[in-house]
């Protein structure tokens, strides 16, 4: 269909983020209704923990690349196959990839720690791409030190993102924000409640 405002469900390349939400929800969805706990939303904690949502895409050349990555309340890795189907990697699968990669790093066969010119054209394997994502820094924290002190890894890392902008966007979105001081006023709308009937928007329209 040629009209850009009309989209097809199968057109995952276009839908992108929607398909990820269909699979796993989004960062806020762990929050259960009416828990009344106020401050400590799962998202606030997530920001402090710096987990990530990563979409990795298989390449026709055989390797993998990071299409998108952003902060999330829990770390989730979505793998997009060549035919557009997507699945979430289980924790066991993630652990397995990380451990296999750790062994390769130890014996010097991982592409992550090789100089760029010696990496074959097939591209990075899944474990390698996974560890070079920002999520990888958390998933594989126990091998993180080995990687972050390795100059080849530093040079290779951004190459595993689909585009330089995906990489810089990802780095930016994880940057810690600076604090500021002021005398402040709060407590507005503290007495509003969701007492209305029907679907529960307080300010529906």
């Amino acid at each position, binding site marked *: 269909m040629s009209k850009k405002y009309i989209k097809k469900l199968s057109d995952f390349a276009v839908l992108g*983020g929607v398909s990820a939400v269909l699979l796993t929800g989004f960062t806020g969805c762990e929050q259960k209704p009416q828990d*009344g706990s106020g401050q400590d*939303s799962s998202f606030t904690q997530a920001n402090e923990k710096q987990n990530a949502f990563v979409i990795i895409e298989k390449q026709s050349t055989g390797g993998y690349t990071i299409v998108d990555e952003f902060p999330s309340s829990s770390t989730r890795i979505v793998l997009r196959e060549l035919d557009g189907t997507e699945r979430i990697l289980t924790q066991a699968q993630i652990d397995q990839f990380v451990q296999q990669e750790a062994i390769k790093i130890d014996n010097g066969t991982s592409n992550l720690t090789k100089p760029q010119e010696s990496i074959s054209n097939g591209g990075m394997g899944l474990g390698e791409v996974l560890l070079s994502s920002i999520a990888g820094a958390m998933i594989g924290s126990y091998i993180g030190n080995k990687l972050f002190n390795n100059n080849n890894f530093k040079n290779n890392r951004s190459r595993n993102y689909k585009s330089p902008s995906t990489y810089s966007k990802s780095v930016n*979105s994880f*940057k810690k*924000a600076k604090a500021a001081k002021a*005398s402040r006023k709060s407590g507005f709308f503290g007495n509003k409640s969701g007492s209305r*009937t029907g*679907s529960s928007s307080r*300010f529906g329209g």
Partner: protein
Amino acid sequence: MQLKKLKPLTNEYLESIGFHWHTDDDNTSYISDEVVEITEDEATAYYEATNELYEMYCEAGEHVIENNLFHELNIPFNLVELIKQSWEDDVHWHLYGRFDLAGGIDGKPIKLIEFNADTPTSVFETAIIQWAMLKFNDLEESSQFNSLYESLKDNFKRFVTLNTPIEDFEKYYKDLNFKILFSSISESIEDENTVKLLQHIANEAGYITDFEYMEDVEFSNDGISKKDKIFEFWFKLIPWEDIAIDEGELAVLLTDIINNKKAIIVNPAYTVMFQSKGFMKILWDLYPNHPLLLETSFEPLNSKKQVEKMCFGREGANTAIINADNSLEIKTDGEYDNFKPIYQEYVEFPKDNNGDFYQAGVFYAYEACGLGFRKGGIILDNYSKFVGHIVK
């Protein structure tokens, strides 16, 4: 009207993706298990009508500001400075709104019912749930007039790029690193998760974001903050007129914050002009007999079936349908009867075989970008159902 019956999404699935408001208080499902089938031409007509209406709103907005028609629109006086300030400067970018339209199917002409420009609901339903229904029913090759998710992401980027190409977002953002704080009140899971979905989309666009409940957001001369951290943008799913009326002190603080350029608030204050149903009277003055408009007046219309509703009423509350002979057909109660009434020519919504009425909702985020339907009684209220669609 053509409806297609689908296998309904399970509550477990809906909750797993953060959609907790799937069941109304009367225990009926809020999401219809049917979708409306429309043609590509009908989709295109909705798209073009919505774009045209938005342009008319902008033209008429200029007219309201130049002529100080705020009182006519029932806008609280303590928002006027905020409205003018936000209107003057492009950085106060309108993220999204939803046009409610009659007609558009069954050969009926499209007519504007109202524009929810400030705090529209149904984002989650339109952007996510109706796609989920197609996916759940293996309708991979089906289409929708629905790029709401991507359009919102692009429009978030325009907070920084404004009228320059959004491809330049990363280039500008890496030097700015502007953060967006998202807020809803704490007692409504629908409001909270709708806001968190928007936050998720802003994250994908590349922003640093955070969430804080309304009552815990801090306001000062230095700007808007959460736990000592200042945010350049503040998204609030709280209507401007509620800020003005219920929390006058906050309106004063926000006026200072905007005047001193300490923060940018989304949606901007000028959207409260569009939100006022009185605005449609201004449109009728400027575009009399325009095919997309219904006659609207501040006084009852002569010998015409009409709808009386309040400038800032919501979800069909305080609405009356008055027949041409002045007899009352139906009236709803509500909490908005202190607002000013408007009178809008009545038009019948498309109707299915069960006698349910259908109203189209078309989202606008820089351009028309997503269609969904509401079905219910002759006055669509808080119990109306969300109905997805397919473009054949």
